[in-house]
């Protein structure tokens, strides 16, 4: 459903991605592992149209979407949850959610459905719905970022380090959310520092090094064989 083919990307003059190729099938959770600075976040941004690839192609739903504007990609069913969450700080929780709800094809019934669903997953957000985004704690902001992405009814969520800086209790909750989204048929491309979490929720895992994908394996195989993990991630 989503594929990156030999994608090269630059920040200014520095060459960050040196030909990344990966694929996510419909409804599949795929992990993207690698040390800091190997280009995992840049890969997600490039897929989302925020970094323009110098070479290569992004294919989504059988269509070449390389160079398509970010807001159009969001309408096509790609959602991005960035690692720093990027909640709109002066918008309330409700208004943050509205940024994804106010679009063509969302009638009253559907709005209510979508809201009911996220408030069931994240009851805390319902309590804080009139609070400004900036007043939420880190964990609450992460929930809001995921909830906001869900408002778009995406086919795939690009999830960038969802557990970064969260308490262990929250990490468990994020894991549950990923499972629930998968059961709902939403595909996820997960960038994560926590290897155990990634291996637990993913079907397949890609391992990146220096701007390229070095290794691909089903998650169960990696769980059984930690030599690969040690080699690329040094843990």
């Amino acid at each position, binding site marked *: 459903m989503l594929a990156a083919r030999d994608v090269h990307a630059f*920040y200014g003059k520095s060459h960050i991605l040196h030909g990344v190729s990966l694929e996510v099938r419909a409804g599949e959770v795929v992990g993207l592992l690698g040390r800091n600075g190997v280009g995992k976040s840049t890969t997600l941004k490039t897929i989302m149209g925020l970094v323009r690839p110098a070479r290569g192609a992004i294919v989504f739903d059988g269509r070449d979407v390389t160079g398509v504007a970010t807001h159009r990609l969001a309408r096509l069913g790609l959602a991005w949850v960035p690692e720093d969450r990027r909640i*709109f*700080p*002066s918008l309330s929780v409700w208004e943050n959610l509205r*940024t994804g709800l106010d679009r063509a094809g969302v009638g009253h019934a559907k709005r209510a459905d979508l809201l009911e669903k996220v408030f069931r997953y994240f009851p805390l957000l319902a309590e804080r719905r009139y609070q400004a985004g900036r007043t939420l704690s880190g964990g609450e902001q992460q929930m809001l970022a995921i909830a906001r992405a869900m408002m778009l009814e995406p086919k795939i969520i690009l999830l960038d380090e969802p557990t970064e800086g969260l308490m262990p209790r929250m990490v468990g909750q994020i894991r549950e959310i990923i499972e629930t989204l998968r059961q709902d048929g939403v595909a996820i491309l997960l960038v994560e520092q926590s290897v155990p979490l990634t291996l637990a929720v993913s079907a397949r895992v890609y391992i990146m090094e220096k701007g390229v994908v070095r290794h691909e394996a089903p998650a169960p195989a990696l769980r059984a064989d930690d030599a690969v993990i040690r080699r690329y991630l040094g843990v």
Partner: protein
Amino acid sequence: MIQLLNGLVNGMILALVASGLTLIFGIMDVVNFAHGELYMLGAYVGTTVLAAGGSFWLALGVASVTIFCLGAAIQLVTLRPLLGRDPLATILATFGLSLVLQNYALWQYGPVARKIQEPFTGHFRIFQLEYPWYRIIIAVLSAAIMLALWLFLKRATWGIWIRATAQDRTMAAAMGIPVPLVHTAVFSLGGAMAAASGVLYGPLVGVDQTLGPGSWWSGGWATSAARCWRPSSSACSSRSRRSG
């Protein structure tokens, strides 16, 4: 007392001009040097409608709509291609634009100031002095327009899009908000507000091609005040982060 009233009326007009300017600056990071010219052209469009026999209120409406469209055209042609470039580029572009518009007005309407007839000529007595009703109307209308803008930003879908874009345009785009269109709309809206204030203020001063620049300087000062006046909206909050 009269001075106080005059101050209030002038302040309201400046606030109206400045809120358009602030809207554009806060959301697009564009210092619009041509804002005063949009204000002036708005007043001129008003005089044209009046000369054609239209009423003052029609002039106000037509001027706002005309400058809204002109603003969209200007944004598409000069500012959109400069998005993401050095701020100096947009300053130069809008400064150049202001010269072009000023000279266009001189060429089209000539150097003689024109008068907009006020819709109310009545006076009322206050502290043994006569004060024109029209000035009171200006202040009230300006306040009403700003209140409408505030409600629009607070509640309407487009208002939320505008605020989201101001706070983080990358994330706004990732949420499917058509950011380029929001920029165009904001520039047009700011222009329409300037045009409305041009027509409203026209009866108090003559309309000539230097109406814009003179008001721009005072508008600039008022902007800094208005930036902090607008509640819970874009301009006062943290600057939007660029994609990186």
